[in-house]
């Protein structure tokens, strides 16, 4: 019992997830900087690896200003609610073995619910601060959410359909011979693009576009609330990539090495794939300019939704035809 509680709190539970969030933020900033010909964070810890931690702590110790016209209750508590979403979802991902910490038979549905929940919380959060910039940002948030949600869910459903399971554990287990990405490369692509939209990474940083609407929905937040909102985004980054690894890249599965104990091996494979997915997003994010909200909606509805539907049809044909059925 104590072991499990420790697992949930430290490794591979909450603290590990937060640490990974910091790591991803650092890698993100560092790779972007290197690709732009800069060094990026350097003096905070070795190569600046503690930079996200310093940012987080500094914001924690800062004064928190609540705008007079804001809805106090939501403004104070919603960041915590928002923070829960990716943190809870992370418990459904198997990291150090084929069984996740809190998996159950239909946990994929829970993940989908938590995704929608996060979008909902962030919308009321944004609306609660009631300034003209956050109002525009709220509109953009909602519009972006309804745009990316359909392709995102369709991509997830594709994996679930093919693996004939609604639990992350089951989907990972079904990929022991063949990774899903080889069957459904387009679903993976759609998932990554939709994920970038969910994380508000360029080119989809529309709701927090710096040069258009100040800091978007983050404009009015300061101090502790801001630190948690930023942390949530980073943890969401980790969770999104981890889900991609589990759904399409076979989780921690990989060739066995005799000398290494299976949990360690599983963890190493998982981390390597996680960082690869993260790196893919870093590169895309650095290479693209921000698009407009109308263009984003068009991209998701007119291009990516048909693509993911075609992918589902293709997978269904495969299943009906009995070719390449997952184990």
């Amino acid at each position: 019992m104590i072991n499990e509680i420790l697992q949930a709190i430290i490794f591979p539970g909450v603290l590990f997830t937060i640490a990974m969030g910091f790591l991803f933020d650092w890698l993100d900033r560092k790779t972007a900087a290197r690709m732009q010909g800069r060094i990026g964070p350097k003096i905070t810890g070795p190569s600046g690896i503690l930079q996200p931690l310093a940012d987080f702590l500094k914001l924690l110790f800062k004064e928190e200003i609540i705008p007079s016209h804001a809805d106090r209750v939501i403004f104070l508590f919603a960041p915590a609610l928002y923070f829960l979403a990716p943190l809870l979802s992370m418990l459904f991902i198997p990291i150090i073995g084929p069984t996740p910490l809190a998996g159950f038979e239909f946990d994929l549905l829970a993940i989908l619910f938590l995704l929608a929940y996060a979008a909902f919380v962030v919308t009321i959060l944004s609306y609660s601060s009631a300034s003209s910039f956050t109002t525009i940002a709220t509109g953009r948030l909602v519009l972006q959410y309804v745009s990316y949600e359909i392709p995102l869910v369709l991509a997830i459903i594709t994996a679930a359909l093919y693996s004939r399971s609604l639990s992350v554990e089951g989907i990972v287990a079904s990929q022991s011979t063949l990774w899903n990405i080889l069957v459904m490369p387009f679903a993976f692509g759609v998932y990554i693009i939709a994920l970038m939209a969910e994380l508000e990474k360029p080119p989809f940083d529309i709701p927090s576009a710096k040069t258009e609407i100040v800091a978007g929905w983050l404009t009015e937040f300061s101090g502790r609330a801001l630190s948690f909102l930023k942390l949530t985004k980073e943890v969401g980054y980790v969770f999104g990539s981890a889900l991609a690894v589990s759904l399409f890249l076979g989780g921690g599965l990989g060739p066995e090495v005799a000398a290494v104990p299976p949990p360690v091996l599983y963890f190493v494979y998982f981390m390597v794939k996680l960082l690869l997915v993260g790196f893919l997003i870093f590169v895309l994010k650095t290479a693209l300019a921000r698009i407009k909200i109308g263009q984003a909606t068009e991209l998701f509805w007119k291009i990516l939704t048909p693509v993911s539907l075609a992918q589902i049809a293709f997978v269904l044909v495969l299943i009906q035809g009995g070719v390449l059925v997952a184990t």
Partner: protein
Amino acid sequence: MPRRRAGAAIPEMFRTMLEKPSTRAYPYQKVELPARFRGKLDIDPERCTGCQVCAMVCPAGVITMIDIGTRKVGDKELPVKRPVFELSTCIFCGECVDNCAFKALEMTKQFELATPHKEDLTMRKALTK
């Protein structure tokens, strides 16, 4: 018309990533300044005669002349003046240096002038003599 594609910058991005970053290691390494760099103003008190030309030409009103005594010319008592520089407002144009007939002024290469107290930037060097 060239082909449109998303991510046209990716090859160059990877090339840049593998190169050495172009950042100059400034605080750890001294800056190489060109010979003509116009930094902090400096005065040689020995050479200054208090002729006031610098105070007259300065566009930013950096220089004020202060009486430090008198001297006798013939049978008249004339005030002896020396400049005081308010460097916080200096625009580093070098007009005073160009106009100083006695070569008392020069622009050094010092540019690290940040200070929490504005008073630190008042240069009274010429008065000390």
